[in-house]
């Protein structure tokens, strides 16, 4: 693959994005001059310390935060009703809806009938391995199951880009590793473009085609590293460990500069 072919395939192009707000007369700059390109089908992971503005990038993309400068260009399918969908850190299921109805949530207003929406929801639940849980209430699920429902809910609207905001950080490490594998399997099957935010370096190298390090205050892209380890990946594979070591060095170097 040549560099040119890759950039021609850009699906998200963020150019000199800035976000700042005023509070009590003080100007807080979260992001400044951020450039980032995500290619179609690519799994990009943004890592960085907390407070560096990683989540803000996703919130701008999904329209929950308004940037103060810069531009975002999407090359999504023109007929795509929901070009992006977001998986939050906490699953944020609607507790008064059964699991299937939660998954179908984003399809309401899409013109699909109720039974078509449920059909789609069941399909997505099968994809995340929760077919038997369609009629449960969210409170009856474990944390990991809830997060899988949240992933199914995001995938149900068939977004061109799946945004994931530290989706596994609140889970125990056992569940987390299981879901990391599940997510790779889902990506292999759906070929979705994924933009994933985490502060966990091992998680980043395990999942990513490319890791983008965000550092500084305001946050900027400090490093951009391709993880050329073939999939399916074995956890703690030598090449992944080496990539993680390099990333740690990169991050601590950046912190030392601050």
């Amino acid at each position, binding site marked *: 693959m040549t560099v040119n072919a890759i950039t021609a395939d850009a699906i998200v192009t963020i150019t000199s994005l800035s976000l700042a707000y005023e509070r009590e007369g003080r100007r807080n700059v979260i992001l400044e001059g951020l450039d980032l390109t995500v290619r179609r089908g690519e799994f990009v992971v943004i890592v960085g310390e907390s407070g560096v503005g990683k989540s803000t990038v996703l919130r701008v993309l999904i329209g929950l935060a308004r940037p103060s400068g810069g531009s975002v260009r999407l090359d999504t399918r023109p007929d795509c009703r929901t070009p992006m969908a*977001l998986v939050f850190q906490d699953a*944020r299921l609607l507790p008064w809806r059964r699991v299937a109805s939660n998954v179908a*949530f984003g399809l309401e207003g899409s013109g699909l009938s109720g039974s078509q929406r449920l059909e789609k929801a069941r399909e997505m639940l099968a994809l995340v391995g929760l077919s038997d849980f369609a009629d449960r209430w969210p409170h009856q699920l474990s944390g990991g199951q809830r997060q899988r429902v949240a992933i199914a809910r995001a995938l149900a609207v068939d977004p061109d880009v799946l945004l994931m905001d530290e989706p596994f950080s609140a889970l125990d490490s056992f569940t987390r590793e299981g879901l990391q594998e599940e997510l790779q399997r889902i990506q292999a099957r759906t070929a979705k473009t994924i933009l994933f935010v985490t502060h966990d370096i091992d998680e980043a190298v395990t999942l990513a085609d490319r890791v983008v390090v965000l550092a500084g205050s305001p946050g900027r892209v400090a490093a951009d590293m391709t993880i050329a380890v073939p999939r399916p990946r074995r956890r703690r594979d030598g090449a992944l460990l080496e990539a993680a070591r390099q990333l740690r060095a990169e991050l601590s170097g950046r912190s030392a500069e601050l």
Partner: protein
Amino acid sequence: MARLTPTLLAAAGLLAFLAFWEAMPRLGLINPAFLPPPSTIPAAFLKEIRLGVWSEAVVSSLSHYVAGLGVGAAAGVALGILVGMSRGVEAATAWVVRLLRPIPGLAWVPFAIIWFGVQPEAAVFIIAIGVFWIVFFATQGAVRGVDRDLIEVAQAFGFRSPLSRLTKIVLPAATPGILVGLRTALGQAWMAVVAAEIFGVPGVGARMMQASSLLSTDIVVVYMLTMAGLYGLFDTAFVALQGWLLRWRP
């Protein structure tokens, strides 16, 4: 056995209460005309039923109760949502609310009579006012307390209009709080029924006033117990409905 004990204690407590009540007039400690012993109540009850007065009063009061509750609750939920969702409306209504809130329902009786005459509408109006404030504040608080994170979920999935925010998130999320207000109003409304009927609109309250002016205290007690019974019935049904509506909660 452990679960039976509280029920037994409750029954024993009630029996003791009735025995005490029976003893007071019988021992001559209280004039039976001022406090009729409970043993005289069933006879008075049967007499009221035979005269057809009881069912007439109950049906009439129930119709005021249901209509007042419906009007007050509907207005309370609607305005509570409006004020809860919009800071502007909240600010604009803040002083009006402060001005009107402390006025007790009974204080509206003169206006109720002037506006509606001694008619069922007047009773409905007074009951509705009492219900309105309870439901209004409960709804406003519940709407204000809706988890912002869930509203973000709706926004992230493209539901950005106030109407879709209301139907998809705010209303279902506020339902538990609204139901608590409604249940309180369910009890308060019976108080208002008596108050509203005392000035002559036919019903349980009017019948009680009639009986008390004839010193037929046993009939007064019949209707006191009637109201307790009806309230118990409504409350039980409401709790069942509430349990079903909130079956999604752990």
